[in-house]
């Protein structure tokens, strides 16, 4: 049996909030803070051997010149180069093998061999000794230099943009660029593969196990049922672990051949090359507005890149489609096929860069029109989806703008630039609106109830997002238990397939599946009480129907009740536009001497449906705001101009924000309930914070010192060039 739901319509039910919605300790916090959380590479089975991936130093046909010599090195067990190895990580939710084969290298840094040895040290040494040569290819690596195929162009047009721009009272026509960026999760991609006959078990660091399982099976040419994946803890993903990567396939192949468990952990440098980067973007934004700042024309044209044969194209315009109203619109997306490392999803693909550029353009427009940037946003909130004309499921942008402005003290900000100075520092404030689409994915979960409590099981992952916590809270709420009364087991493909973690859809999708599984249990209990499920109240071990009540233990009579829940997106997706909204406000100091920007404070106000656990949700929003700060000020994956290789492929040169870069953050999660988001009325919060916070920082720089940065990040050299 199973309770299934296709989300076609508004939900009319109500969810009680005894455990749900409460600020609750992260379920796995104690394990993490004491070092007892165990990640992919941290098990040592009998006979374990170690693999090290070897990268291509160039592009073209690959030759392993001294293979025999390396195979003869002490401790070395094999040098593997197999046609089933993969070129780069699979795209999110692919569910099939990415491009395979290592006889040619499509980009510099592609893994082309695996050296396996008895010890990690021997493997690393042998991998460095292996001489790889590549020849015969001189592939284009500059997105501006290639012809774009028609298939790689996507256009949405409404009205007449050019005419509207000509007639507009105020016009903006600017080009913005964002560089390649990287997820750079703290745990490097790792896999430990072990075979038992035809069955393969991989302990891996992955986000979406139901798809990953199929991807590995497809790579190896075996049945999906013969693959078991375990990812109970994942040290961050942010998109880079949506699809399987090179180490998992190589480890599985080597383990089969050697008949021993093989562990492969990607070298930090490989992490930056093999696992999809966020594409660089060039974005031309044209805006036309009337005297009050009301938009009549929106043009947004984006150029992004990817390797040939990759489906993914950074969806830069995703947020622009619904952010603001304007009758005349032209949105064009182009994908250049070049040979930099593969591009793919990185936290909030699309909006992270698209909304950032757009919200800088809106700030420029506010200046041009001469109105307050908050007022400009308020004047342009659409009543319905600007392109499809369907209503929004809920829309709280105005509320977040008012709330954020009040918390920040926006009213005190001088509108003109270069008004405040402290010593060498220019002080200024900026803001931006935040937009992110809301998605749901198919998900299943199982819940078992005994007199001792409940157990939730799904292959859903917790990549730091708080899945352990909220799924436990959902079951506790539905079954009248305390949070401690529920055990949550995740990250094992032996459990029903959850949604996986990505696109901020985890909580609402897998959470709904858990809720439905509990509904099946509630129905069974109501049957035993001889009443309707709707009349049932479960509280602390008692089952109540009207004025009759019985102890749960007695009703269960030693049995276990099992519920299976299954949710999939339905027609709701076509009936309403679902999104999350927010507003970010930043204060910066810019050095007049060095051009350095310091973030002094940041306020974020967000609306993302029902908040299931304010503590973990807040951390997610904060993480997003910090990512936005990194995007604005320091992060850029640099490609060599001749062969496109990633020059700064480590954590010393790819500059993540550090402790000293980040001040206190004031974060508000506004109360909202979205009935179109399934019975929990919850939307995603994991990505919203990055979809605007960077623009707030860039806009604050302008307010501080008058320099308008259009090429991110705003490194000192770029700011200094504008200061005079």
């Amino acid at each position, binding site marked *: 049996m199973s309770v299934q739901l296709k989300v076609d319509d508004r939900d009319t039910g109500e969810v009680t909030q005894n455990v749900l919605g409460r600020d609750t*300790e*992260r379920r*796995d*916090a*104690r*394990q*993490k*803070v*004491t*070092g*007892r*959380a*165990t*990640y992919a*590479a*941290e098990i*040592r089975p009998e006979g374990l051997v170690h693999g090290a991936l070897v990268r291509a130093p160039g592009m073209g046909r690959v030759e392993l010149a001294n293979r025999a010599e390396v195979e003869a090195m002490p401790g070395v067990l094999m040098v593997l180069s197999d046609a089933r190895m993969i070129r780069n990580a699979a795209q999110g939710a692919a569910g099939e093998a990415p491009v395979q084969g290592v006889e040619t290298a499509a980009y510099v840094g592609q893994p082309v061999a695996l050296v396996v040895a008895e*010890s*990690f*040290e*021997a493997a690393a*040494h042998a991998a460095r000794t292996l001489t790889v040569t590549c020849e015969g290819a001189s592939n284009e690596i500059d997105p501006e230099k290639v012809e774009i195929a028609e298939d790689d162009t996507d256009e949405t047009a409404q009205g007449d943009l050019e005419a509207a721009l000509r007639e507009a009272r105020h016009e903006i026509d600017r080009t913005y660029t964002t560089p390649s960026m990287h*997820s*750079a*999760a*703290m*745990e*490097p991609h790792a896999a430990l593969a072990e075979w038992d006959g035809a069955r393969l078990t991989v302990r891996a660091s992955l986000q979406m196990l139901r798809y990953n399982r199929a991807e590995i099976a497809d790579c190896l040419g075996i049945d999906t049922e013969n693959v078991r994946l375990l990812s109970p*803890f994942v*040290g*961050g*993903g*942010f998109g880079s672990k949506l699809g399987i990567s090179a180490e998992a396939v190589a480890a599985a192949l080597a383990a089969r051949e050697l008949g021993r468990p093989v562990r492969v*952990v990607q*070298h*930090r440098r490989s992490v930056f090359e093999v696992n999809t980067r966020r594409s660089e973007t060039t974005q031309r934004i044209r805006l036309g507005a009337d005297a009050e700042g009301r938009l009549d024309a929106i043009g947004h044209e984006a150029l992004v890149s990817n390797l040939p044969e990759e489906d993914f194209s950074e969806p830069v315009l995703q947020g622009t489609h619904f952010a603001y109203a304007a009758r005349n619109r032209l949105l064009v997306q182009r994908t250049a096929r070049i040979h930099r490392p593969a591009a793919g999803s990185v936290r909030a693909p699309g909006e992270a860069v698209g909304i950032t550029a757009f919200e800088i353009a809106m700030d420029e427009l506010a200046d041009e029109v001469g109105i307050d940037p908050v007022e400009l946003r308020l004047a342009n909130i659409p009543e319905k989806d600007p392109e499809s004309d369907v209503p929004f499921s809920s829309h709280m942008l105005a509320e977040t703008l008012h709330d954020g402005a009040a918390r920040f003290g926006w009213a005190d900000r001088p509108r003109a630039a270069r008004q405040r100075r402290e010593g060498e520092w220019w002080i200024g404030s900026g803001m931006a609106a935040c937009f992110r689409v809301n998605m749901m994915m198919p998900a299943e979960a199982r819940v078992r109830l005994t007199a001792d409590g409940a157990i939730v099981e799904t292959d859903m992952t917790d*990549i*730091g*997002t*708080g899945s352990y916590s909220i799924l436990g809270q959902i079951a506790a709420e539905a079954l009248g238990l305390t949070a401690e009364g529920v055990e949550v087991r995740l990250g094992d493909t032996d459990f029903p397939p959850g949604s996986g973690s990505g696109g901020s859809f985890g909580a609402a999708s897998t959470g709904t599946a858990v809720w439905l599984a509990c509904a099946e249990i509630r129905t069974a209990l109501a049957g035993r009480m001889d009443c309707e499920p709707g009349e049932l109240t479960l509280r602390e071990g008692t089952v109540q129907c009207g004025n009759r009540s019985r102890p749960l233990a007695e009703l269960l009579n030693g049995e276990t009740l099992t519920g299976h829940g299954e949710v999939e997106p339905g027609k709701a997706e076509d009936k309403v536009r679902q999104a999350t909204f927010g507003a970010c406000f930043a204060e910066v100091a810019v050095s007049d001497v060095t051009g350095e920007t310091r973030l002094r404070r940041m306020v974020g106000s967000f609306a993302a449906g029902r908040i299931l656990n304010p*503590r973990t949700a*807040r*951390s997610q929003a*904060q*993480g*997003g*705001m*910090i*990512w936005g700060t990194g995007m604005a000020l320091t992060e850029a994956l640099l490609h060599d101009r001749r062969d496109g290789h990633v020059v700064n492929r*480590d*954590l*010393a040169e790819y500059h993540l*924000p*550090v*402790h*000293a870069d*980040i*001040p*206190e*953050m004031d974060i508000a999660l506004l109360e909202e309930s979205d009935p179109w988001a399934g019975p929990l009325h919850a939307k995603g919060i994991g990505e919203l914070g990055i979809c605007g916070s960077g623009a707030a920082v860039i806009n604050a720089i302008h307010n501080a010192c008058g320099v308008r940065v259009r090429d991110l990040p705003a490194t000192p050299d770029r700011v200094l060039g504008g200061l005079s």
Partner: protein
Amino acid sequence: MQISFTVNGTRQDMELDPRVTLLDALRDHLGLTGSKKGCDHGQCGACTVLVEGRRVNACLSLAAMHEGEEITTIEGIAQTSPDTAATLQQAMIDYDGMQCGYCTPGQVCSAVGMLSEAREGWPSHVTEDLDAPLELTRDELTERMSGNLCRCGCYPGIVKAIRTASEARTSDSEAA
């Protein structure tokens, strides 16, 4: 080669390849996987442990360099510095100073080491007056913790947790 040192109060005698780092000795040979490997290059701080009470990036140090020394890892830190570490760990939970948890053990070990450096008056890059008694301001604290990266962006919670531990420690010593 033969190497022995003490980890969390227990003496360990190991036969190790001289190339084995302190981090790999802990994780792969002693099974103490609480210390994390984020970069293996001394660039992230996830592997921070205390050697003779001082913080060290275990990935940048060979096991063979620590003959006879006293090493404390996340697994033992609550026993070796009970007041600071246990308060800090609880405060990390209260302020949700973690998400994926991969940087967390390093943050905790680093903070414990950092607080003792500060108590001993070590200056940092942002210390203005090298002769005045050190006040552990937010700027001082974040400067000293900047070798511990957190990609999940948990810095504000981690800072609050460290401040809580530092204040608890101050009142401890005042009471004493």
